[in-house]
């Protein structure tokens, strides 16, 4: 791969993601203040000792943002990867095996989707103990229903192709057919969906935190910071907008990178570059 072949838009995405991941990994080293440390008056303006000002309790906003990157990116990424693994596995199995397996899995999926995601999540999270891995698991399972629908739709199209038939007639096992024949040919729509789902996961986590069932205070996450500072907007204080912008920026960066990956994979098929 040549560095020069990477378009500008992808570079923007890569740099943005690199910054976010750097912040997440080295948060204790680069944050000017502690995560929970009250360092000044509430809602101080930007500038001076506090580059982005302070929040509703007088904590440094920049430090909160940097620590927040850690939880936000980790939870959203883990949930998305998990939901894709689950959704892709089940949906491809449904598409390849067909018959009753397909019916069973698809109808269970429909059942799950018929319950509004947020309400479902609130009930489940309220019942289960409040631990990080449970939060990730619940987000992943709920999100995997969307992945399942998409995965099954694209896999059914590929399953009927003759090269899959040829692999079956060769005597290949189910795992080979799913991972070597079908998966590479469905990567384009799945990657596109991945970018979108990741952004949704960040938003969903923020929503849960906002409602008090996500990341528990005083631990910082971007959605939580928005919630903490939302009242400031009335007084013209931008503290809530900054983490909001961070969420938007992260989502955009992920999608820029995914778009570029999409082009690279679709050009392998000999399709036109803009596929």
């Amino acid at each position: 791969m040549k560095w020069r072949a990477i378009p500008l838009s992808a570079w923007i995405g890569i740099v943005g993601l690199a910054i976010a991941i750097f912040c997440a990994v080295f948060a204790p080293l680069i944050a000017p203040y502690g995560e929970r440390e009250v360092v000044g008056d509430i809602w101080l303006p930007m500038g001076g000792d506090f580059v982005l000002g302070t929040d509703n309790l007088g904590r440094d906003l920049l430090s909160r943002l940097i620590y927040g990157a850690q939880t936000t990116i980790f939870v959203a990424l883990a949930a998305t990867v998990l939901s894709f693994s689950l959704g892709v596995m089940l949906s491809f199995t449904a598409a390849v095996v067909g018959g009753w397996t397909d019916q069973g899995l698809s109808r269970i999926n429909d059942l799950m989707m018929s319950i509004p995601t947020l309400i479902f999540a609130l009930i489940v999270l309220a019942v289960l103990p409040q631990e990080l891995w449970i939060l990730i698991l619940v987000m992943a399972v709920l999100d995997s229903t969307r992945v399942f629908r998409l995965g099954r739709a694209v896999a059914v199209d590929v399953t009927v192709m003759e090269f899959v038939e040829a692999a079956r007639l060769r005597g290949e096992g189910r795992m080979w057919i799913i991972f070597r024949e079908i998966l590479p040919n469905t990567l384009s729509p799945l990657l596109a969906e991945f970018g979108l789902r990741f952004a949704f996961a960040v938003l969903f986590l923020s929503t849960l935190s906002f409602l008090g069932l996500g990341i528990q205070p005083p631990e910082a996450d971007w959605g939580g910071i928005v919630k903490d500072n939302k009242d400031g907007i009335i007084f013209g204080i931008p503290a809530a907008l900054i983490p909001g912008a961070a969420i938007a920026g992260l989502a955009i960066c992920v999608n820029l990178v995914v778009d570029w990956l999409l082009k690279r994979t679709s050009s392998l098929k000999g399709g036109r570059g803009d596929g």
Partner: protein
Amino acid sequence: MAELLEVRDLKIGATAYPPGEPPQDITIVHGVSFTLQKGKVLGLIGESGAGKSTIGLAALAYGRGGVRITGGEVLLDGEDILALGGSGIRDIRGRRVCYVAQSAAAAFNPAHRLGDQVVEAAVRHGVMSRSEAWERAKYLFGVLGLPDPDSFGRRYPHQVSGGQLQRAMTAMALCPGPELIVFDEPTTALDVTTQIDVLAAIKRAIEETHTAALYITHDLAVVAQISDDIMVLRHGNMVEYGSVQQIIEEPKEDYTRDLVSVTQTLKDEAPDQSDSLLRIDSVDAAYSGDFKVLHDVSVHLPRGQTLAVVGESGSGKSTLARVITGLLPPSRGEVIFKGAALPPEFANRNKEQLRQVQMLYQMADTAMNPRQTVRDIVGRPLTFYFGLRGAEKTRRVAELLEQIEMGKGFIDRYPAELSGGQKQRVCIARALAAEPEVILCDEPTSALDPLVAKGILKLLLRLQAETQLSYLFITHDIATVRAIADSIAVMYQGRVVRFGPKSKVLSPPFDDYTDLLLKSVPEMRLGWLEEVLTTRRMGSAGH
């Protein structure tokens, strides 16, 4: 003589998008010139990529998706239509120059009645009133031999057959009374027995309406029946231009000579053997319960020989292949391989049984995983059946690529980076990698250009001579059958109507269907179409 259409030094360009590289401008037609007189038919012939459709569409001053006319003149009655603006062009298209596409099924709007679509251009251009146009449409339906011309226009596209749809499309082109019609492979997608009717109808209709035509096809035998002159194209250049008689009987260029001689016999018939490698024993098969597609089919294939299964679409010949591979278990009868019955379902067959029966598909494009390189595609059966890995596998893949006359330079290419013929060759290599006893070939050459197809057939025959491979070769093309078969099974509506050694099947006395099939295959000589139609008419008069 008045020149209706004069094309001078036509140059056409397009933008290519090679994978991983910036877009490039390429020239696809390099300065072609020809003239067409009123009421005459010019055949444009060449392989795919020769630029024949592009030139045909240029007669309507049209460039298909990204194609640009970059130079030259197209004079219609002395007027350069390339210089006309949007409204001038629109006035010509559909009124003075009309177009008949290859796939009528895709060209008709399924939501509207045929008649409304046939008269649309004439009415929109104000050539005639709607009722006049309907009258003309009915007249044209009659000329084109469509059933029940008065009510035919009230049907929807899905209610008529493919051949009828193609004739309706010709009626649509003829309705406004154009001076020129561009036919773009109008019979290519049809069965031979249907093709002959459509061909005859088109010929009669353009004779009766004195319309000039550009007839685009890759089949020299077809174009010989219908046109006055022929232009042979290759890679966007004119190879040869002359009267039909001159091109067929005394071609000047080597390339034209190859095209004319493409359907020669390649193989003499081998003697019939009683011990057969593969025997299909009174097989019935049905899709989804009651719909029976095979009725009591029994054929057999000796080792090292080729059995050609021939028939039109819907005759059940591909279903036979599905039964043999085990994709469709038969409802009665069995498939006997090397003296033992194969389990009816492929899932119950062991690796060794699967290995010995390999398959070649019609569309090599979809038969290969587009995300795998040639190395993976050909190498997988080696790993799977014989456990070859690493350098040993690479060496064997290179060997196989040599065997299919491609060379190891192709080993890291993706299917998208191969030509149609090369793709089919890689599929052959994949089949060979399993070291099979029999290869089921499901129309492997029918999507290819004649010369490329001939190369594939020669390769298959060479492999057969070298390794005693057996082929079950499914095709609808009698010329291919003549070229490669030892024995032939003729299928019609799910039954084998004739089966035996090639010499017997292809010599009289014939049954009705085989007779019709053999007589429908266009022959590369003048006057063939008239002859067939005359004998048919006499036949029907006698009944």
